């Protein structure tokens, strides 16, 4: 069921409308995202080729004729609105807007901050989002901010910490939550699980969907010396809500997932490999700085469309 509802700024009725909650657990695994269209006032789930909305490229994004899906960094929105002008215009046009959190620290050993969850819930309502997303990572510990997403040990203890925090968040969020594995330059010394098992355990226990970053798949495989296709073969691709595609660069013997460089051909090849196995409903270009001229950015969107077989949006 997919509906477009006008006047999507109206408030929803709160946690009671949530389609995943603390008890959705295993029973909801793998189909939690299906409830997205049932939330009153929410736009359709992510579809086709999208782009991360940033104020610096608001004009460029507004001019994409075929665009149906954007993401916005949740922490940049004021919880009681109004959304920034360019973004509000997209909401009015019926473009699906997914708030993407970066500071929840769901992987922190400490309980997730209720004020941060509440903020994410409010901005989801503000833009009529069908789902929100966050990372399997921690960003602070012992009262000190790391300033970026840090990897967890792939241990049962860490799985339990993430699951507890995801459930706390799901209990307050009005829409389903998708979880994104990060790019890590280093691993913990005491990993008990491989990446696929680590992610699958977390998804099974929470009913969350997967936000798969294909550039992170490349980055981790490149930096660990493993095979990205072997990971794709083992991930639960049927649970992917949408996919991130981003640029990066080799520096100092590592591949860095910078979001400020062009998408390299090797990452586009992985998009093709992914879609050959199980095409996700949507793919989104993430670019966070060093913006290229508009034709280059359009070409990147077109390349993602070509690699996935979705219609061009430019």
């Amino acid at each position: 069921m997919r509906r477009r509802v006008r006047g999507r700024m109206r408030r929803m009725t709160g946690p009671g409308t949530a389609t995943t909650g603390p008890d959705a657990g295993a029973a909801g695994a793998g189909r939690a995202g299906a409830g997205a269209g049932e939330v009153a006032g929410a736009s359709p789930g992510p579809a086709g080729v999208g782009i991360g909305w940033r104020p610096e490229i608001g004009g460029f994004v507004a001019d994409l004729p075929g665009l149906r899906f954007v993401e916005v960094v949740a922490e940049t929105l004021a919880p009681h609105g109004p959304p920034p002008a360019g973004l509000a215009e997209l909401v009015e046009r019926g473009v699906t807007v997914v708030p993407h959190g970066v500071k929840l620290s769901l992987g922190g050993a400490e309980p997730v901050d209720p004020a941060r969850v509440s903020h994410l819930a409010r901005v989801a309502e503000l833009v009529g989002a069908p789902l929100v997303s966050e990372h399997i990572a921690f960003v602070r510990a012992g009262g000190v901010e790391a300033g970026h997403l840090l990897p967890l040990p792939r241990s049962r203890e860490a799985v339990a910490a993430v699951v507890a925090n995801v459930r706390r968040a799901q209990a307050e969020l009005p829409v389903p939550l998708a979880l994104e594995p990060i790019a890590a330059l280093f691993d913990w010394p005491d990993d008990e699980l491989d990446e696929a098992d680590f992610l699958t355990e977390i998804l099974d226990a929470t009913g969350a969907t997967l936000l798969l970053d294909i550039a992170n798949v490349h980055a981790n495989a490149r930096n660990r010396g493993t095979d990205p296709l072997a990971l794709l073969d083992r991930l639960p691709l049927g649970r992917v809500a949408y996919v991130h595609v981003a640029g990066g660069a080799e520096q100092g013997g590592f591949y860095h997932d910078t979001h400020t460089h062009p998408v390299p051909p090797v990452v586009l090849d992985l998009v093709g490999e992914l879609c050959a196995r199980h095409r996700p409903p949507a793919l989104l270009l993430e670019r966070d700085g060093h913006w290229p001229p508009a034709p280059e950015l359009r070409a990147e969107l077109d390349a993602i469309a070509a690699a996935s077989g979705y219609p061009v949006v430019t």
Partner: protein
Amino acid sequence: MSDDRGHPAPSGRSGELAARQAELVATLVAGGPLPPGFAPGPVDAARRALLRKRAGDVARHWPLLAAGLGAAWPATFTGWAAGRPTNGSLRDGWDLARELRERGELPPLGAEELACREAASRYDGAGAPRRRRLPALARTGGAVAVQLAGRVRLLRPARR
């Protein structure tokens, strides 16, 4: 306590994970030692990547300061920020601008940006900057900025 799939709830040993996460964050941003078992090269690459990302974030909050330093911005920022955890991009840039002023190394564009910020808000170096309610005048490196009813104007440019 365990959930319906038999995973242990994060009690008991979560104190250990918390301590190890704090140790790792200290290594990455506060000059702490490398925790046992971690590979030094990759962790150091992550530490430097965090500094570069932070330099970009602060440059977005302090565009004139960063532009005034030009090609020297990344090295100036990372030299100042290494081993110093962030207090957010606004405060990080403010603290750096004040330190450069003390060293006599604040470029004119940075002096003008700092004067405008200091006319608009009161910042004690320890907590979040607070907007000034009363009219204020701020001077830095020859730049003079005035704030009236929340509007800031640069009255005189910095010495060049």
